[in-house]
């Protein structure tokens, strides 16, 4: 794995016709930091993340990793690991098979891909399911498999979109411990609607709405900014309002 990476979004903008999905956002994520990326539905989180990963071309602006674009970065493709909101895996491959395949797609030697796969499956409580086809796993197991798939090539930057969605309390605890364990060695951007999850896991939180970054600060500072005994949800509602989003 590479050393932790600093991420910078500079003036990042994306329009879909009349809709300004991401509106000139500027954001810095420090090396080894876990940044909670919060926003209501349609706020622009996913669009921004897709631009961070090179899956969507910005209309304006740039994303830099240690001051270099993804294309300039040596072996840039191995830099990023992504766990999308939906479970994305090959239904008819076993957990181990798809982990090894994903590793090989990132140029990992097959032997190394196998050992890393078994290690990650062990850490995420899936070692007993290694030989089972993904379609036969429970929802929680699939979620954990998706985290493992994002990490098999040992990326320096990790994007986690709702990592705890659909997990039971036991799995949530396991997942939090696992993500916390990643801190320091990787830069993590965590997208979630779960304020408790963001509060517990994030070093800093960025709140986005209508394509604009509204605030970026530590959870503690954000909570104190609106009063004692406030929660992150209070901060979120105060900044984004109570209006339901489509």
């Amino acid at each position: 794995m590479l050393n932790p990476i600093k991420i910078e979004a500079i003036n990042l903008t994306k329009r879909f016709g009349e809709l300004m999905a991401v509106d000139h956002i500027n954001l810095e994520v420090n090396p080894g930091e876990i940044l909670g990326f919060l926003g209501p539905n349609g706020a622009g989180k996913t669009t921004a993340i897709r631009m961070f990963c090179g899956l969507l071309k910005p209309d304006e602006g740039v994303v830099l990793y240690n001051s270099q674009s993804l294309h300039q970065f040596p072996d840039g493709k191995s830099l990023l690991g992504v766990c999308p909101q939906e479970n994305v895996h090959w239904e008819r491959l076993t957990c181990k098979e798809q982990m090894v395949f994903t590793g090989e797609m990132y140029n990992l030697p097959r032997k190394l891909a196998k050992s890393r796969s078994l290690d990650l499956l062990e850490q995420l409580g899936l070692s007993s399911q290694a030989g089972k086809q993904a379609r036969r796993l429970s929802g929680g197991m699939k979620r954990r498999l998706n985290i493992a798939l994002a990490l098999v090539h040992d990326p320096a930057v990790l994007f986690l979109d709702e990592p705890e969605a659909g997990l039971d309390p036991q799995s949530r605890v396991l997942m939090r411990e696992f993500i916390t364990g990643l801190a320091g060695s990787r830069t993590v951007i965590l997208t979630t609607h779960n304020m408790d999850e963001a509060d517990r896991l994030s070093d800093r939180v960025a709140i986005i709405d209508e394509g604009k970054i509204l605030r970026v600060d530590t959870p503690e500072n954000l909570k104190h900014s609106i009063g004692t005994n406030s929660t992150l949800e209070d901060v979120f509602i105060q900044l984004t309002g109570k209006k339901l989003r489509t």
Partner: protein
Amino acid sequence: MKLLAVIRKSFTEQIRQVWILLLTISMAPFFVGIFYLIYKSTALNLQVSVVNLDSQSAGHRDADFGKELLRYLESVKNDTIPVAFNEVSDRATAEEQVRNKQAHAMIIIPAGFSDSILFKREGGNVRVPFELSGNLTETNYMISAILGITYVSGYINSVTGTLEPYHFIETPAGLSSKLNDFTLAIPGLLVLATIMLMFSGAIAFVVEPEKKTMLRLKLSRVRPVTFLTGIAIVQVLVGLVSILLTLWTSYLFGFDFSGSFWLFLLVCVLTCLSVIGFSLILAGVTKSVNEVLVVGNFPLFLFMFFSGTFFSIQGATLFTLGGYAFTIPGLMSTYHGTEALKQVLIYQAGISEIWPQLVSISGLTIIYFLIGYWIYRKRHMVVF
């Protein structure tokens, strides 16, 4: 090696999709069985009803040429085309047999036939009005009529001592004298085995964007050409299994394989590749397996009908290549695949005789792949 990893993954997924795999590889062998039953039940066995209106010549009591012709026709044995001439008492019965398809044709030996023969023998000039009747739209009638005319003419020439100033020598082309309709259908059925790859190939290509696993491939920056080649190689293997299964089934039903096996294999691999190339176009314009199954029906029928598997189609010539006419059906590669397999399997042709077909299949394969690659990449595999 990424290509090897894609092949391994695609192969594993393919064999675990048991129903798709079974349907893909078993369709053509199944149709071999169907065709065998069709041709067996419709095996050529021509029946011709003969009505004899002639009677003994009044002047010569031993001259009954109508009856003699009838016996001659009844004794005819044709090794190539089974035909039987049967006496029927009257015209109405013969007509009814033709209508009921109990007979393919009827011949009326006219009244006064014996007298006409005698008159001819004595140097007279006569034209005997033989009547042939049957359903003119049926091929079997035409064959029966030709055979009837041939035998009747031969008999009359024989009894009148007339010698025609010509005679035909029939030379069978290739193995055609040993062929039957079932054998002739086999090249088309072998190509049918490749046509099914259009669905299995398109499904293998489109399932990644549909299930969003394409995201992982895009993030890994795997080159589209590596990913698509890996899937195509597995699909070629599936196609070859299907073709060999079809060939084996044909053999069980009596098809006698002849010609160069390696040339046969080359034609099959090229045809498989071309269909897989087309499946890439199909996967490029669709977003899900359901769409593939709906949209795919249109090219499926084009491939099937233009291959000549079920009907022989002749379209307008677009251009010629080494004397080989490139027609509108030739826009579908399976047409050339069938033509090449016919040449190899039936006429034992070599590569020098089927190069225009090989060039045509290869050219169309490249065109299909280029179009398919462009559409698929643009729609499903763009990264920045």
